């Protein structure tokens, strides 16, 4: 059982960044079963087995998927926005924020909040998918530098850099 879970080292994101060392990264891929809509797989990666409860991660991914579905919904509001913008030769987009951009800001805030409350205390960090081209949901695994030297995950890190 990793020692750091019991320690109070990971209180917040700033501490995580400054004192922890990156072990490896796990990537949750896109789920294309419903087409090109942005959705992430809810399959639980095995590397996170002893780091976080399944339900928490599933909940996060499901909430993110619902946000993206809301942003890409084709309905009355998107038609209105589209037609209005077309009528102004899309100049209105220079001043107005689109619905997608509004939802992206909400997502960014949500990920920040999830990191602070759930992931940082467990030595994990979520990366906003928009930073990775909406291709993957990147989860960085950290290990406290102060805790015991060699651990199984450090050998995973040298394997992942694949010299």
């Amino acid at each position, binding site marked *: 059982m990793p020692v750091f879970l019991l320690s109070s080292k990971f209180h917040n*994101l700033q501490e995580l*960044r*400054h*004192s922890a*060392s*990156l*072990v*490896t*990264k*796990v*990537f949750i891929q*896109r789920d*294309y*079963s*419903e*087409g*090109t809509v942005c959705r992430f797989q809810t399959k639980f990666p095995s590397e996170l087995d002893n780091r976080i409860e399944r339900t928490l991660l599933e909940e996060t991914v499901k909430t993110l998927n619902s946000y993206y579905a809301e*942003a*890409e*919904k*084709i309905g009355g509001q*998107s*038609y209105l*926005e*589209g*037609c209005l*913008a*077309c009528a102004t*030769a*899309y*100049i209105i*987009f220079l001043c107005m924020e*689109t*619905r*997608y*951009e509004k939802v*992206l800001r909400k997502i*960014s805030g949500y*990920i*920040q909040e999830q*990191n602070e409350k759930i992931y940082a205390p467990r030595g994990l*960090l*979520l*990366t*906003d998918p*928009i*930073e*990775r*081209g*909406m*291709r*993957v949901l*990147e989860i960085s695994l950290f290990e406290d*530098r102060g805790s015991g030297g060699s651990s199984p995950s450090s050998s995973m*890190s040298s394997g*992942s*850099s*694949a*010299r």
Partner: protein
Amino acid sequence: MSAVMITRKVRKWEKLPGKNTFCCDGRVMMARQKGVFYLTLFLIVGTCSLFFAFECPYLAVHLSPAIPVFAAVLFLFVMAMLLRTSFSDPGVLPRALPEEATFIEMEIEAANGNVPAGQRPPPRIRNVQINNQIVKLKYCYTCKIFRPPRASHCSICDNCVDRFDHHCPWVGNCVGKRNYRYFYLFTLSLSLLTIYIFTFDIVHVVMRSVDNGFLNTLKETPGTVLEVLVCFFTLWSVVGLTGFHTYLISLNQTTNEDIKGSWSGKNRIQNPYSHKNIIKNCCEVLCGPTYPSVLDRRGLMQEDSPVSTTCTAPPSSSSIAAPQTTKTTAPLIPNEHTPDDAKPSIAASAEKSPSPKEELPPTPKLPPLASPETDAETSIAKDKTH
């Protein structure tokens, strides 16, 4: 410890791989060859100027002042659509960072199992099921990602583009998910403008000839001849192109898919993206959500001091990173635990390399597989001329 302080703020567009050119500090993004785009601009602006100079004074007086007004509105709309198509990000997918590329490599190797020495590994393909159809996702050797459905790699711009339609030299940019509707509106409004100018040229010549005679009319307004010539040739190509794209939109297909015959012929795979309803397809393509760019061209690169300094970050890096610390992605300050191939991707050393491509970190050497597919499919797309 001596830290090299980098004082110039570098924006991310300066370090983007790919063969795009950027203007206005990253606000404008185009392909490298812009010659044909300038020709398009010249033809449109030139023909409209001749129209306003020669035809409009006569028609405004003898027919209606609404004619030049409507022409001006149409001209402005055409220019707005053209510039939007040319200057915006078509939906470029950023290349995989080293960790992601390695992760995908590991997954592929695990899936392939043991390949006997000397034998070629199987092609890198992932099958996904979309609306009960099996769609194959191909691996892009340049971008080191499995391309999402409908994405394709443009060899002219050297980028993977989402919902890739084609690379259009006339607008000097790729046409993809983000700018397809502007491209369609450009061709549609240009068709209308061409028909409009052509019609009123004829009307003008007829009306003037009744008073002065045909040859005198041509002598008085020589611009008319030029306009009619340009409009005549433009009409056939642009109106045809608009019709073709209307057909594609009603079926929710891209030019790329149409050329490759993805949804027709012996494969018998139906288009899984079509709603089977023309109105729904049109609404999705033309009135769907406006996708944001995932490139973040104008974001600031994270400046870091050289590797030898340890994790006590110098104040400059945190102040430059200040707008981004609220995001969860501020890359780590490199220390001895960061995998070596991630360090160069955590932005620049003091010297700037001339070509963004050389900034790419030394990724693990891939097995020497040929990747003819990327060139084959994009060369087919290139062949599609207007």
